[in-house]
Structures are given as structure tokens and as C-alpha cells.
């Protein structure tokens, strides 16, 4: 087990370095001026040159890359060009907010996805299966930013039950777990949960259908095992794959919630990335992508390890 763990961590290292290289190259290849957030287009060329030197953008790409990686290894992701605030401080605060949102959305998505998946798998080709499958297809297909806007129109603009935007009455820095604050989390979390719900439901339905058709289930039934006992075996066999899918979905939600966070002005990583992109704030963009990518790699590592715990056959393979 320990050797497997060490092997997986060692595999992750070149991936992380590759991610750092790719994210540095991508943000530098993109067109636009890295100083545009602090330098209007009518600024003189002299002024532009002066600022390029002051911010170190006149150095060669390799020098800029290695200097960035060296500082990143020491925990310093630089400062945002637009705000002057440390990137690490900005990113980790946003990661906390997104994690809260993504974790709740994943839980909602996993609960309902697993429920619909099991029901559909157990009663396949019945009307229950058709309804559950329809819901899961809608979950996968519906554009979530559209769903978010519809929810805002209904529950904020019309019924005035839930706040339309923000992360708490005084901002996320004063977040506490009471209803006044949770109200701000409900709509973005429900909107965000639709895709994982649909994906997990479809995955679990297919798994349950597959497992139920396997010989060991017939064997269990032949030996007189009750419906609940069979159900336990099915759940146990489904769990590793469903968990892997859930882990991946959590990873996607951590980085892929730009639209939802923008619609709800939720101060997470998606909102931060959106601003960094539009302001061409390279240190903030690089730092956010790097942290998210590392998070994704770590999450995959964690899921791999958990899968091994649940199903030792994976380690042997």
C-alpha cells in the first residue's frame, strides 16, 4: 500500500510541473497586454516600456518562467497586477468559497444522482426508470447559467425569497452557518448540482443494470439472500466507480464554475478567473490555474487511493 502511495505521488510530480509549464505558456500566448489593467491604451510607449521593466515583463520567457516556479515552490505566487494584493491570499480565499459551494453541490448531486440511478437501474424500462432517466438527461443537458438565471428570476426577482447575488449579507469574510447566510448558498449550489446529478445518475444506472445481470447476483438470490442483502452487494460493487465519478465532478466544479459564480457573483475561483482573464492579470491567472490544477491532481490522487482501499484488486492491477 505504502509503495503504491509513493508511486502515485511520484507520478503526480511531473504532472504538476507540466501543468505549471502549460499554464505559464497559455497565459503568455494569449493576445493582449499584461499591463492593460493598469495601463490605458492611450498611454505613451515610453510609459509602457517603463512599466514593462518595472514589472519584469521585458525579461525572456524562460527567465520569467523559472523565476515564477522558484517563487511558487516557496509559496509565493506573486502579486496581482490589478490590485497589488498577494495572489496566494486571493486564490486561497476564493478556493475556500468555491470549495464550500462545490462540496454542497456535489453532495446534492451525488445524493439525488445516486438515488435516481439506483431507482432507474433497479426498475429499468419501467415508468420509474423513464422519469429518473429523463431527469438525469435534463441535468446533463441544461445550460447551468440559464438554469441559474431562471432560478434568480423566480426566487429572487418574483418571489423575493432568496438573495440574487453575493456570499452573505456582509460578504464572505463574515460567513457563518446560519440561515441568513445559507440563503445565499442555496441557489448557486442547486444550480451547480444539476450536472453532477445527471452524470452520477447515468453512471449508477448503467452500473446497477450491469451488476444485476451478473452471475453472482443470480447466485446470491439462488442462495436465498433477500432483496436488501442483494442491494448491499450491488451498492458495494457500484461504490468505487461512483466515487471516482464524484471525485472528478468535484474537481470539475472547483475549476469549472465560472458561469455560475459570475451569475451569482459568488466570490470563488471561477469569479476570480473571470476577472483575471478580462483584466489580463497574468500573475493572478497563472496562480489560480496552477492552484486549481494542483487541487485536481491531488483530488485524483485521493480518489485513486480511496478506490484502492475499497477495492484492493485495483492495487494489484
Amino acid at each position: 500500500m505504502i509503495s503504491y502511495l509513493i508511486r502515485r505521488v511520484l507520478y503526480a510530480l511531473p504532472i504538476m510541473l507540466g501543468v505549471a509549464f502549460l499554464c505559464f505558456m497559455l497565459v503568455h500566448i494569449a493576445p493582449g497586454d499584461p499591463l492593460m489593467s493598469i495601463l490605458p491604451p492611450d498611454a505613451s510607449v515610453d510609459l509602457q516600456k517603463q512599466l514593462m521593466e518595472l514589472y519584469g515583463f521585458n525579461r525572456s520567457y524562460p527567465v520569467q518562467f523559472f523565476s515564477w516556479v522558484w517563487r511558487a515552490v516557496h509559496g509565493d505566487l506573486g502579486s496581482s497586477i490589478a490590485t497589488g494584493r498577494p495572489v496566494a491570499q486571493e486564490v486561497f480565499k476564493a478556493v475556500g468559497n468555491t470549495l464550500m459551494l462545490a462540496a454542497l453541490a456535489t453532495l446534492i448531486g451525488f445524493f439525488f444522482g445516486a438515488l435516481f440511478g439506483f431507482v432507474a437501474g433497479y426498475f429499468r424500462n419501467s415508468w420509474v426508470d423513464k422519469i429518473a432517466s429523463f431527469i438525469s438527461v435534463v441535468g446533463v443537458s441544461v445550460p447551468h447559467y440559464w438554469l441559474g438565471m431562471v432560478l434568480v428570476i423566480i426566487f429572487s426577482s418574483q418571489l423575493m425569497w432568496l438573495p440574487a447575488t453575493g456570499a452573505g449579507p456582509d460578504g464572505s469574510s463574515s460567513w457563518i452557518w446560519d440561515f441568513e447566510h445559507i440563503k445565499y448558498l442555496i441557489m448557486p449550489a442547486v444550480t451547480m448540482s444539476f450536472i453532477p446529478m445527471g452524470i452520477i445518475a447515468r453512471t449508477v444506472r448503467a452500473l446497477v443494470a450491469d451488476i444485476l445481470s451478473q452471475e453472482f447476483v443470480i447466485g446470491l438470490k439462488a442462495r436465498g439472500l433477500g432483496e436488501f442483502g442483494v442491494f448491499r452487494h450491488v451498492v458495494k460493487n457500484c461504490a468505487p466507480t461512483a466515487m471516482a465519478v464524484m471525485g472528478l465532478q468535484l474537481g470539475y466544479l472547483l475549476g469549472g464554475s465560472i458561469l455560475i459564480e459570475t451569475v451569482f457573483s459568488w466570490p470563488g475561483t471561477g469569479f476570480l478567473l473571470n476577472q483575471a482573464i478580462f483584466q489580463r492579470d497574468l500573475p493572478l491567472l497563472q496562480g489560480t490555474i496552477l492552484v486549481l490544477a494542483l487541487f485536481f491532481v491531488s483530488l485524483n490522487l485521493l480518489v485513486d487511493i480511496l478506490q484502492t482501499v475499497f477495492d484492493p484488486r485495483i492495487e494489484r492491477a
Partner: protein
Amino acid sequence: MKLSNPSALTLACALAFGLLSSAGAHAEKVLRIAMTAGDIPRTLGQPDQGFEGNRFTGIPMYDSLTQWDLSKADKPSEVIPDLALSWAVDTKDKTKWIFKLRPGVKFHDGSAFNADAVVWNVNKVLDKDAPNFDPSQVGVTASRMPTLRSAKKIDDLTVELTTSEPDSFLPINLTNLFMASPLQWAKKLAAVPGTVSDKAERAKQAWAAFAADASGTGPFKMTKFVPRERLELAKNSEYWDPKRRPKIDKVVMLPLPEANSRTAALLSGQVDWIEAPAPDALDTIKARGFKIYSNPQPHVWPWQLSFLPGSPWLDKRVRYAANLCVNRPAMKQLLGGLMGEATGTVEPGHPWRGNPSFHIKYDPDSARKLMTEAGYSAAKPLKVKVQISASGSGQMQPLSMNEFMQQNLKACFFDVQFDVIEWNTLYTNWRIGAKDPSAHGSDAVNISFASMDPFFAMVRFVSSKAAPPVSNNWGYYSNPEVDAIIAKARTTFDAKQRDALLAQLHAKIVDEAPFVWVAHDTGPRAISAKVKGVVQPQSWFIDIATMSMD
């Protein structure tokens, strides 16, 4: 206690009402504003996020030496004294200006505003060796006052500013230099850990701390700052100008970049004021009792034309025809009425308007006649390529407006093609110019601009000295007569004479037509009816200090 006696009941009711009304009288008046910015504009004195920054974190928290008069809606804003009581150029050396400062002004931290503070604030962006020099503030400041070079204290209330060349536009440019408190910054510098030894890094950290706990001289003081989420300001009861002493206790500003989210926040009662409501929601917003305020801004939405060899716009008849073929009233209807019809960079009534002989209006017959004279017809249309964006700050509704123009111009024998590129890239290309490969061979570029001061409204587009890469004369327009008027205006220090020269310049530009002028933005905002005293001036800015709330 049993209240059976009618007089006792009356007394009890009166007491209860008295208590209620007393509670109401002391209830805190809080104004919540949703901005279009994606982040709180910088709070350290020199805001980013364009003029929305000046509007919300500049003017409310800070003062400058000169300011825009925002008290009138019926005429263009003009520059008036702020922290400077008066100013004059040195009669012998016209690169030197003497500014007399307002006495008795205090920063929010209690320290005095004086000539030392002015020198310190000039140095923060112009003197690389100054301990408070901040590169991040240089771009947005120095570009808006390109000729300012240094400041020198004469006495506590007198300061001398020096420019690189005689420049009568300086007092207008100085509306962009906000005065931050040197003492507050010094406190933040002292709090930087001793382990940070690099001078520049210490200054950077001090500015970051100052931005979170800023101190200016403005009518509102900063009380709470949550980066990217909210800024809270409280009224400065000791503000030096009694006319602008705030009546609203607290202002909360929220960055909500998405128009539908802003609209929902307004309709759900989360905010009292939104900038740029979603156009489709205007009827709903009005039906819910909110007021829509708008007024043409010093903003121009044009096509800026190329004058490179081979450009189709070198023929003046073609330039005139394009200007005459745009159906501006119909475009205004398309935009729900939220557009001013542009007949130049500034409109009649503005001191720089002048008397152009070319009257811009919708006259397709005259346009077709000009095009026929120039050798074009429906069978042989003139091909033009325009570089545009699909969105962008100040760009209004660029795709639908450009497509509308494309249809209009087709009727006047133009075959318009678009090169649609991303907004920031287009913005960057603006300075690089029409000769650069990034222009993709375009004959015009569609970038809106602010026209608040003479340099930004006119000079940078038509001066031959402003050709790329120096400034925004994207199309390499050059005219010795125009250059001569600019030189004269820049060195004329009497405001009325200078405005007369600028009017002459504007008239010349309209007659030369280096642009197709299309629209002025109207800066629409939706505000709750309980907010009173709202004056929407003909400006990018608005004064919150003079408003009150029910």
C-alpha cells in the same frame, strides 16, 4: 396596566408614535450600489476600472486639486476649484503653474492637507526615487496628465507644478490626481515587517495596506473593505464643503459585472441602485417603481478611419457619405432610447462645439449622390473592412449597432465587412495602429472613447504627433492646419480663448470627418424612488454626496 380612559389611550398612542418616529429619524440611511465592475475599483487614490473607478472610489473618498462640477444636468460639466482655490500659469515660464491651496482641509485620519501632501501625491506616480513611488498607479495617472513632470512646495498653501511643455489642459487633467494621506501611508509603511528589506517591496506592501484602510479628504470615509465583494463608506460629517456634506449615512458598493444579476439584485431589494440595467428589463424596472436616469455622456461611439495609402476613406466625399447614411434615430430606437445621436465629438451647446459647415444627419439621398460622384454604385460598391469587438467597456451593443450600420451603408453603395476580435486585443491594437499586421488590413476601427478633456476628446486622434505608437491616431491622420490649432490651444492660458480655439479645432475635425460619428452613451442607471436629489450630469461621474434617502 389597563388603558380604559380615552385620554390615556391617546397618550399611549402618541408616545408609541413618538418613539417610532424618533426611531425612524435615527434609522441609518444606507445606499447600496451595484457597479458594473468585476472588482471593487482600487481604493488607494488612483482607481482602476476606467471612469467607473473615479466615479465610485475616487470622487466619493478623495478630492483633487480641480474637480468637475456635477451639480447640473442641463449643460456639460466644467472644471471648478476643489482642493486648489485658484491657479495661474507663470507669465515668464509657461511650463510652471502656481496652485493656491484650500486652507483647513483635513484627511480622514485627522492630518492636514497642505503643499507637502500635493508634492507627495505627485511623487507617488512621477518620482521613481520617492519612497512612496508606486508603479501600479503610474499607468492610470500619468497617461491622463501626460505633460506633468514635478511638484515643488512654495509655502504650506502654495505649490508649483511643472510641465514638460506649455500645456493649458493641465487644470483639466488634474481632476484625475486624487490626494491620498501621506500620514496614513507612513503608518502603513511603519507596520511592514522589518524582515522585508527591499525599499520597493516595502512601499508596495504599504500601498496594499493603505488600499484596505484608505484615507483621503472626500465626503465619504472608508469603513469596510472585502476585496472583490464589497466596499463600505461612512459619511464624513466634517467635510470641508457644506454643500457636499453627505446626508446619507452609509454607502455600500458591490461589484456585479453581469447585467441580469444586477437587475435581479435591484428587483429583489438587495440594492437600491444599479449601473447599466439590462436593456430588456427596463419596462419591468420602471413598473416596479424604480427610476431610470440617463443623460448623454462625454463619450463617443465612432468608426475611426484609416488614412493610409490605398484607404477608401482618403476621398472626403466617401467620408461624408458614410456619415450621412447612418440612421441614428432608428438606431436610438433599437437601443430603447438609451443613446445620444452623435453629430460630432461634442454636441451643440458644448463650449468646444464650434460651427462646422458639415452638418451630420441622416440624408441617404445626399450620401448616394456623393458616392456616385466618387464613382461607386449598387453594382460597384465600395468595400470597407472594419475591426470591431463583440463586447467591451463603453462599447454599448457593438454587434447589433455595427450590423445596423452595415445595413444602412449598403443602401449607400458600401460593402462593409467586419473583422470581429476580442475586446482587449482590439484595445491593444488601437495603439499599434492601422499599419500593423494586427489590424488585418482594416480600413476603420470601432472603439468608443471618453471625451472629457481636449487631449482625450480630440488631440490624440488628429495630431500628427500622436501617430502610433505614441498615442491613438490609429489611422495616421495628418493635417498641418489641425496641428497648428492644437499647438495654439495648448499654449493659450485664458480659458475662454482656449475654448474658442478648441471650438475651432472641433469644427475643423467635423469638416474633415476622420470619423464616422454614430452615438453617445447615456450612462443609464436605475435607482430606487426613495433616493432623492439625484442629478445625472452630462458627465461620466455623479455626485452621491448631495443625495438623500427617505
